[in-house]
C-alpha cells in the first residue's frame, strides 16, 4: 500500500505464483484427508483447508489485502449475513427434538 490510491497497487508476480502453489497443495491435502479416517476431524480439516484457500484467493488474487476498509466490510458483511441465515435456520432443526421443559 505504497500510495494513497491503493487501487493502483500492483501485486508482484511471485506472490501470485506462491498463492497458486499453496492452493494446489491445499487441494491435494484435502483429497488425501478425505481418504483417511480421522473421525469427526475429517470434515473439520477439509473445511478449514477450504476456508483457507478461499481466504487466499480473496486476499491476493482479488486484491482485498490491498483494498479499502469498505471492501473488507462488504466481504465480512456478506459472510456475517450468510451465517445468520445458516445458524438461525439450523437452530430450528437442532431444537425440534428437544423436550419441552416443565
Amino acid at each position, binding site marked *: 500500500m505504497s500510495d494513497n490510491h491503493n487501487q493502483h497497487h500492483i501485486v508482484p508476480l511471485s506472490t501470485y505464483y506462491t498463492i497458486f502453489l499453496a492452493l494446489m497443495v491445499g487441494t491435494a491435502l484435502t483429497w488425501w484427508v478425505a481418504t483417511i479416517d480421522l473421525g469427526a476431524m475429517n470434515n473439520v480439516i477439509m473445511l478449514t483447508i477450504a476456508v483457507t484457500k478461499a481466504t487466499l484467493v480473496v486476499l491476493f488474487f482479488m486484491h482485498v489485502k490491498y483494498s479499502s476498509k*469498505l471492501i473488507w466490510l462488504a466481504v465480512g*458483511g*456478506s459472510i456475517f*449475513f450468510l451465517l*445468520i*441465515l445458516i445458524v*438461525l*435456520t439450523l*437452530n*430450528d*432443526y*437442532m*431444537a*425440534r427434538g*428437544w423436550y*419441552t421443559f416443565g
Partner: protein
Amino acid sequence: MPTNTYLNAATTLKSWLLTRDHKRIALMYIAGITFFFGIGGFFAALIRLELVTPAGDLLTDETYNKVFTMHGVMMVFFVLIPLIPASLGNFLLPLMLGTKDVAFPKLNLLSFYVYLFGSLFTLYAIVAGGLDTGWTFYTPFSTVASTSAVVPAALGIFINGFSSILTGLNFMVTIHKMRAPGLTWFRLPLFVWALYATSLIQVLGTPVVAITIVLVAAERIFGFGLFNPAVGGDPVLFQHLFWFYSHPAVYIMILPAMGVVSEVIAGMARKQIFGYSFVAFSSLGIAIVGFLVWGHHMFVAGQSIYSALVFSVLTFIVAIPSAVKVFNWTATMYKGSISWQTPMIYVAGFIGLFAIGGLTGLFLAAMGLDIHVTDTYFIVAHFHYVMVGGAIMGYMAGIHYWWPKITGRMYNEFLGKVSAAIVFIGFNLTFFPQFIAGYAGMPRRYHAYADAYQVWNVLSSAGASILAVGFTMPLLYLAWSLKNGEIAGDNPWGAVGLEWNTTSPPPTENFHTQPIVTWDAYEYPTPVEGHVV
C-alpha cells in the same frame, strides 16, 4: 419555467426509452408502478366484491384464489418493493447528494427494463393460467399440487429481483462514492440514510429469495425433490428461506417511506429533525436486526418452540427503532413552523396508521396470541395498515412534496387535501373491521365465509370503494397539473436541501454549478424564501 430542464432536453421517444438520466428513469418507474398499482387495485376490487356476501357467489373458488394471489404478487413485488426507491429515490438521490447522476446510469436503465420485463412476464403468467399459490408460494402446494402457472410467475419475480438488487447496489455505491464535497455522512438527508438501509436489505436479502425460487422451479420442472416430504424433504425449510428475504422485504417497503416522512416533516415544519442521528441509525438498526426475526411467520408452522422463542424476542426488539422514529418525528413537530399542505396531511395519516399497523405487529410477535390470530384477517389488517397506511401513505406524501420539483408545477392543493381525507377515511373503514373479523376467527384466503363475519366484510367492501375514489383522484389531478398546474418555482416550500437548490424541474446535469456543502441537513436560515404558506 426554466428553459433548460431534463424534461425538454430532448423529446424524442428514443431519448426517453434509452435515457440514462436518473430523473427520466424515475418517471418511467412511476408510470410502470402506477400501472401495476392499478392492476393490483383492480384485483383488490374483485376481492372486496366477492366478499360482500358470505356465499362466494361472484367468483369461483379457483378464480378467487388466483385473484388474491395476483393481488398480493403485484402489490408486493411490482408496486411496493420498487415503489419509493425506484421512483422518488432514483429522482432524488443524486440531487440530494449534489451529484450529476447515480454511479452506474446504464445499470440504472437496465434495472428499469429488467423490472418491466419481469413484471410483464408475471402478467403473462396470469394469461397463461394464473397463479393460485398465494404470494408466499408455500411448498408442497406450489411444487406438487398447484396446477397453475407457477413457473412463469416465479420466473417473473426472479427476473424482477435483479432489478431490485441492481438498484440497491447502484444506490449504495452512489452514496459511498458520489457525495458532493463537504457532504459528510452526518450531513446527509435522512431520506438518504433510509435509502441506504433499504439498499442493504435489497442486496443481502433478494438473492436468497432468488435461489429459493430456483429451487421451487427445479422441483416443478425437473422433479428434484428438495422440499417434498415424499422424498424426505422438509416443506418448512422453504418457509425459512422464503421469509429470510420476505420479512426484511417488508422493511424495504417501509424504510423509504419513513425517509420520506422525515423529509416532509423537516421541510413542512422548517425545522431540524429531532435526534437526527437516532433517526438515521434506527434505519440501519431496522435493516440489520430485521434479518434476525423471520421465524415469526412460522410460529404454528412446525418449527421448534425454542426457535420460535428466539424469533419472538428479536421481533419485539426490532419494534424499538420504529418506536424511536415515531417519537422523534412527533418531537420534531414541537415548536415547528408547520405548514398544512397536502404532504403534511398524508404524513399525519401515516403516523396514525403506521402506529396502529406497527403496534398490531406486536400482537403477532406475541407467540401465544399469534397462535390464534395467524392466518386470519387480523394478519391481513396488520399488513395493510403498515403497507398501505404506512408505505403507500408515505409515497403519497412524497409524491406531492416533490411534485413541483419533478414537474415544475403545483398540484391542486384543495383536491389534494380532499383526497387525502378520503383516503384516510376509506382506508380505516376498509381495514379496521378486518382486525375484528380476524380476531373473531375469520381465516384469510377464504372465498366463502361464515355468516357471522358478514357485517365486517360489508363495512370493509364499502370502505374499499371509498378508498378507490381516494386513490383515483390524485391520479387525475396530478395528470391534469402537468399541463395546467401553477408554475411552482424552484423552492415552493421554502425548504432546505440540495434538491431545492436547483431549478424546478432540474437540468439534465442536476446543478449548474457543483454544490459544495458547508452546512448540516435541515439547517434553516432566517428568513426563508418560499412562496407557499
